[in-house]
């Protein structure tokens, strides 16, 4: 009997020990920061929204319907923050990019407004599936091998007759691309604010500055269309310069 009791005791002990949950070891992981760049659109001193009506410096009513642009090769010296980011106000709101990085390494940034040449003519199917340059993500922002990507796309509708009838029958389409239209970006004193556990840097996009930056201006009634092709080089360059003026890294 004693032997049986001892046997039962040992057997029970083995079962209990085998069922005991192993204590999980806490991995020694370095803290990873999430940093995020947002673009805050405005129209002069007013808040900006797609499909809302604003007045151009020439007095016409305009409704912007799409603002999409690429930023590529964002880095501080040799530290790369992002190879490519795609801003699409209608589909992704204010977000330009969000990634894991140490914000202190990016108090300065250089990059391009548009797609730099080495990326612009690469096979668009070969980029990783999560890259904004992959053809499935680029979608309407890719033309083909020779012109490459559309660097930025601004579409709007204009009402040129102030008669109270909101006709908005003039189409505005600025589709700017090709290597000559690339613009450089840089800032030497970026501000990162810790918000909701993320370090956020906010750029501004002033669509009033896009229409008139003090140096040059676009009259949307007469200058309303470019696909960056032959014959529209001057307007393409002007639109490209004005868009660069409108985008401000902070």
């Amino acid at each position, binding site marked *: 009997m004693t032997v049986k009791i001892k046997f039962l005791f040992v057997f029970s002990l083995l079962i209990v020990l085998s069922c005991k949950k192993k204590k999980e070891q806490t991995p020694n992981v370095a803290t990873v920061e999430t940093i995020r760049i947002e673009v805050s659109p405005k129209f002069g001193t007013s808040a900006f929204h797609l499909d809302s009506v604003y007045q151009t410096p020439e007095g016409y009513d305009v409704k912007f319907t799409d603002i999409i642009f690429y930023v590529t090769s964002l880095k501080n010296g040799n530290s790369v923050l992002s190879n490519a980011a795609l801003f699409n106000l209608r589909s992704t709101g204010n977000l330009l990019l969000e990634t894991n990085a140490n914000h202190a390494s990016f108090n300065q940034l250089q990059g391009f407004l548009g797609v730099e040449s080495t990326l612009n003519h690469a*096979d*668009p199917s070969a980029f990783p599936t999560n890259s904004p340059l992959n053809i*499935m993500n680029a979608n309407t922002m890719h*033309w083909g091998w*020779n012109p490459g990507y559309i660097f930025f796309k601004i579409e709007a509708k204009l009402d040129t007759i102030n008669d109270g009838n909101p006709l908005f029958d003039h189409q505005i389409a600025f589709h700017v691309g090709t290597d000559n239209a690339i613009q450089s970006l840089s800032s030497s004193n970026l501000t990162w604010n810790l918000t909701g556990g993320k370090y956020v840097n906010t750029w501004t996009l002033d669509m009033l500055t896009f229409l008139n930056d003090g140096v040059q201006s676009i009259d949307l009634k007469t200058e309303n269309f470019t*696909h960056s092709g*032959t014959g529209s080089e001057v307007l393409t360059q002007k639109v490209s310069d004005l868009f660069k003026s409108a985008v401000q890294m902070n």
Partner: protein
Amino acid sequence: MKYLLVIFVFILLFLGCRKDKVFFETTPYALEIPSHFPQMQIPTENQLTEEGVLLGRFLFYEKRLSGDNSQSCASCHSPLAAFSDPNQYSTGIDGIQGDRNSMALINLGWQTFFFWDGREKTLEEQILQPVINPIEMHESWKNAINKLKADEKYRNLFFRAFNTQDFDSTHASKAIAQFLRTLVSATSKYDIMYKSIYGFTLTPQENTILASVTPDEWAGYDLFKSLNGADCFHCHNGPLMQINTFSNNGLDANPLDFGRELVTNNPNDRAKFKVPTLRNIEFSAPYMHDGRFATLEEVINHYSSGIQMSATIDPNIEYASQGGVQLDATQKSLLMKFLLTLTDHEFINNPKFQDPN
């Protein structure tokens, strides 16, 4: 203690006598993604298997999915017509016609929405619709599944594909979706031209095809992607020969079919329709969402001089206000020659895509 021993022996006997459950191990389907294509995003819950694709192929050609057992998916998506319908409108089992042309089923694994108005976001959801549509196959899925369950062949096919005897419409749609994702077209003359432009290493056979591309075909391609030429490439480019978006391509000044607006209720989407691929366009006539153009010549004439302005006209159509890109007869001929390079005979005639019965 003795009782414990007896109980223990009984448990052992019970476990030892339990019947083994029959279980079929599915075989992953090795879908070859063409080198110049982006990766296909396949839903994790419906990965391709040999068994699933085979079942889907049978179901695609299965007429018992329709109310009177007279129509299958293939009735309106014929392989010989690039998996579309050569009729302007398809006619359902009750003799009622729809009001849109059947879309060609090509490279569906890269699409992000389905139907001309994009009302379904996944292939699996799209597949469920034609069976129950009263002007198409007009059958309830319950009846359709019951007919399949009465057939031993299907009981085995479903069991091998999904390890269940209690299959339903979701299993059927998953299987058809698997089959449709294998319908990859990537072996046209255009593919060789595209790969050569992007610097892909070509096989000797591909180099032979490249050498056969005529100067007129290259000139047609130049026109196709020229801003001051035919200007087609805004909506039709890349290996898929399409972009995933909706467009009003200037068919009507006062459109009767509101297209995408019927889904979104947004007037800015009026008369916008899914941009289709141009692959195998030689075989997918008639053209446009309503099949109004019987020939490619009519399509080219539309973009050349037939564009109608309306509030939602696609801003990519640069010369819309002039009625189109104004091609002359020579340019139209060159453009036609390029469009025919998009024909993929290997795809059209692929035995794996044909009726298995």
